[in-house]
């Protein structure tokens, strides 16, 4: 700069030239205390292109000038306690201007250019080469939130955790993580039903399997060491105690019922003994009194062993309960060992194992005592055999105990299970016969490969005191080919409206492989007592279509799948302020009129000009989007109801009047 130019400088920004620049934020080491909580102002060391050499020996990073940071108008300066932290990272490409124009000594950062997925997050290798914004104190290994440093408009730029189970997240992609490890686990609600003991144990085992999979990541437990081994044993210990507590009532019920059956047999035996002795003595003495006394004496002779059995009952129960803990732990360790290959029958197998332990305990405790009363018990009586034969009955009694309280109560009337992240669940309670089969070793091999034949999802309807409702899902938006084709649930077709639903029942949409997720449906029932469909399901509409549901073979081959059409549009929420002239349109171009009531609420929707020769087919979720063209109406939610496209019957050639 010449002396003349220097003398002519005004030293006001913009009057002595305005110089833009672009540069790169220097590495962490060069930022000193500025990024460690002891900084002054908001400033960063920046290497500016065209002003600073691309050689750190010529100009070390530490010698770069500090660049002030210009703050946006919505960020706040700190005045009035309004402010935000700066989000500039080492390696960021920033641009700005010099406050001192051509002197270029006071740079200001005005903005920064976003990073893209094309830029690798590598360590600093030299000036003006892209490198990571992660530092020694800001790390992200991608264990939860995606570690990409891209901020571009791209679905992969910031990969967020998914609200699905860890299993499904790992199937979605390598980068997908579950938002919470508990998602997919089941909670059994408080219940007075003894059935819930079986239900709680079964669910606890299922949840245990999920927890073990989360801990091991699918690895063999034999190879687990350190903290993983500690977590595994912690999980086993915790659930052992939990199931041990749950089993107390079960043991008590079974011991009681076993005693009830034994005492009934003993009672019958005593009667026979009395009759036999009395008859013999009567024949010998012809004295009814002596014969009666002899009969009673024969019964009294068994009083001691019967008393011993009675006294022993609580001890037998306590001994079984005391020994359950080790048995439960052993069973759980067995499950943990084969958790990679677990199938849905694992809960039954566990309960079968518990049954064996309880039956063994009862027969082991009662067996010796029964020797004392063997003469009044049926020939060849075997307590173990009887219990094993009767276990279904015992379980049936245990599981059906609540039925005594309310005869004929529908077991699906209430919600007993809740899935974390999914909501109320259709209760999956093992049947007594399944448990019996497992207890007797007839349940087949439970630890095998998971099901690979995945069927289309089922619609499960439960709760609200109603029953018999059934429906089938209508799948669409398919992706993939052949047997790997998957789809979303576009709609639900009610095949049986059921009855006695006091409120809309819960709907669960699940497939046998649990591979589909996210389909959420809600039911609509008729509250009109005068209506023939009172307390029946009139509609089920989809609020989230979900994805990845297996489709049927016919759906995987679209030409063999019957096409669907929009049958009608149902009003989910009537909204307000709509006008009779407002027009409703669906995603396939059909138009509808609305009938409005008080306050402009939409009461019903009717299709305009239904031409049955050209009903447009529905293929994906966009086809069933319903929009309302209204200038003042708001808040209405309308949903499409689908049905298979009817076969065209041909034109009407002649109308015959059969009345006149």
């Amino acid at each position: 700069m010449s002396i003349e130019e220097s003398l002519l400088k005004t030293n006001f920004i913009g009057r002595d030239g305005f110089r833009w620049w672009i540069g790169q934020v220097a590495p962490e080491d060069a930022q000193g205390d500025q990024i460690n909580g002891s900084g002054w102002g908001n400033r960063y060391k920046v290497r500016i292109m065209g002003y600073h050499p691309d050689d750190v020996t010529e100009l070390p990073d530490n010698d770069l000038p500090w660049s002030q940071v210009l703050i946006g108008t919505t960020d706040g300066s700190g005045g009035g306690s309004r402010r935000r932290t700066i989000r500039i990272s080492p390696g960021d490409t920033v641009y700005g201007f010099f406050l001192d124009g051509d002197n270029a000594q006071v740079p200001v950062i005005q903005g920064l250019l976003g990073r893209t997925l094309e830029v690798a997050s590598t360590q600093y290798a030299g000036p003006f080469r892209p490198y990571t914004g992660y530092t020694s104190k800001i790390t992200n290994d991608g264990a939860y939130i995606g570690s990409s440093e891209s901020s571009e408009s791209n679905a992969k730029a910031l990969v967020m955790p998914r609200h699905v189970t860890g299993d499904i997240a790992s199937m979605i992609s390598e980068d997908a993580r579950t938002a919470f490890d508990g998602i997919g686990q089941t909670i059994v609600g408080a219940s007075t039903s003894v059935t819930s003991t079986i239900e709680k144990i079964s669910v606890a085992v299922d949840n245990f399997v999920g927890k073990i999979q989360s801990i091991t990541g699918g690895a063999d437990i034999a190879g687990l060491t350190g903290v993983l081994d500690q977590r595994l044993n912690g999980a086993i210990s915790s659930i052992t105690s939990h199931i041990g507590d749950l089993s107390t009532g079960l043991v008590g019920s079974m011991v009681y019922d076993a005693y009830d059956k034994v005492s009934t047999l003993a009672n019958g035996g005593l009667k026979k003994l009395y009759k036999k002795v009395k008859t013999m003595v009567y024949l010998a003495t012809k004295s009814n009194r002596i014969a009666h006394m002899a009969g009673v004496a024969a019964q009294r002779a068994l009083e001691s062993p019967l008393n011993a059995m009675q006294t022993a009952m609580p001890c037998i129960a306590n001994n079984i309960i005391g020994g359950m803990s080790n048995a439960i732990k052993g069973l759980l360790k067995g499950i943990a060992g084969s958790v990679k290959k677990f199938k849905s029958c694992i809960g039954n197998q566990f309960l079968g194992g518990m049954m064996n332990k309880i039956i063994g305990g009862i027969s082991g405790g009662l067996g010796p005592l029964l020797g004392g009363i063997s003469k009044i018990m049926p020939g060849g009586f075997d307590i173990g055999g009887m219990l094993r034969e009767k276990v279904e009955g015992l379980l049936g009694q245990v599981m059906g105990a609540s039925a005594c309280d309310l005869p004929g109560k529908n077991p699906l009337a209430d919600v007993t299970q809740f899935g974390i992240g999914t909501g109320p669940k259709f209760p999956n309670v093992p049947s007594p016969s399944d448990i019996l089969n497992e207890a007797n070793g007839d349940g087949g091999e439970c630890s095998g490969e998971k099901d690979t034949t995945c069927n289309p999802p089922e619609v499960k309807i439960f709760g609200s005191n109603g029953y018999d409702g059934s429906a089938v899902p209508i799948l669409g938006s398919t992706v993939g080919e052949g047997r790997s084709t998957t789809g979303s649930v576009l709609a639900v077709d009610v095949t049986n409206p059921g009855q006695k639903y006091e409120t809309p029942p819960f709907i669960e949409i699940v497939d046998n492989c649990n591979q589909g997720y996210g389909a959420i449906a809600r039911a609509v029932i008729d509250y009109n007592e005068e209506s023939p469909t009172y307390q029946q399901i009139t509609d089920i509409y989809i609020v989230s279509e979900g994805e990845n549901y297996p489709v049927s073979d016919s759906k995987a081959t679209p030409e063999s799948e019957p096409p669907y059409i929009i049958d009608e549009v149902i009003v989910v929420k009537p909204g307000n302020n709509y006008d009779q002239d407002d027009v409703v349109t669906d995603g396939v171009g059909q138009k509808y009129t609305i009938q409005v009531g008080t306050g402009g609420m939409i009461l019903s929707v009717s299709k305009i000009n239904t031409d049955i020769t050209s009903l447009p087919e529905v293929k994906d979720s966009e086809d069933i989007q319903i929009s309302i063209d209204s200038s003042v109406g708001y808040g209405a939610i309308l949903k499409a109801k689908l049905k298979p496209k009817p076969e065209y019957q041909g034109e009407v050639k002649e109308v015959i009047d059969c009345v006149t």
Partner: protein
Amino acid sequence: MAEAPNKNWQIRQYDQFSPWFTIDTGNPTMGNDGSTVYGFYGYSPYGDKNVIRMSGTGVMNIYNDQRIEMIAGQNASNPSVDIVITGKSGDVWITAEENGKIKIKGASIYLDAADDISLVAGGSILIKAENRIDLVSMIMHRAKAWLGNLAPYKGWMGKVNVGNFLKVKEPDLSKVDVGTDV
């Protein structure tokens, strides 16, 4: 695994403060209960996760790997309502999984049920009052027990009227018909 096509990415916005905390809104990726309207995601240095989220189907999730503390009323000037938990239409479930206990403590505890109150225990039930226990009921009955002083409950409508003290139902020799005639 195949994700559904035609997701609405136009509405997605996010704000990431660090690997520890992110706000995500309008994320169309599908979860078990639909897409995400908004989500707050925390991740601690020890790998603990925290999520506060609203799903596209209107569900709010609050998940936390460690403890959640909800304390209110520290400086309330007079006794009032500090915390309200209300289900407007459906059940309110409180469960402690595995070995957790549920402890409710207060100067007075009211259980007010329009219908029934049921107490079920795998172990024992203890009712202890330093002053008095009042049982007011039209009908009392019991199902079964080793010991007791009321008649066995057998089937629907099994009951004992007030003032009746019937034979014990317990597994003793009374179950055996000693001296039954031919």
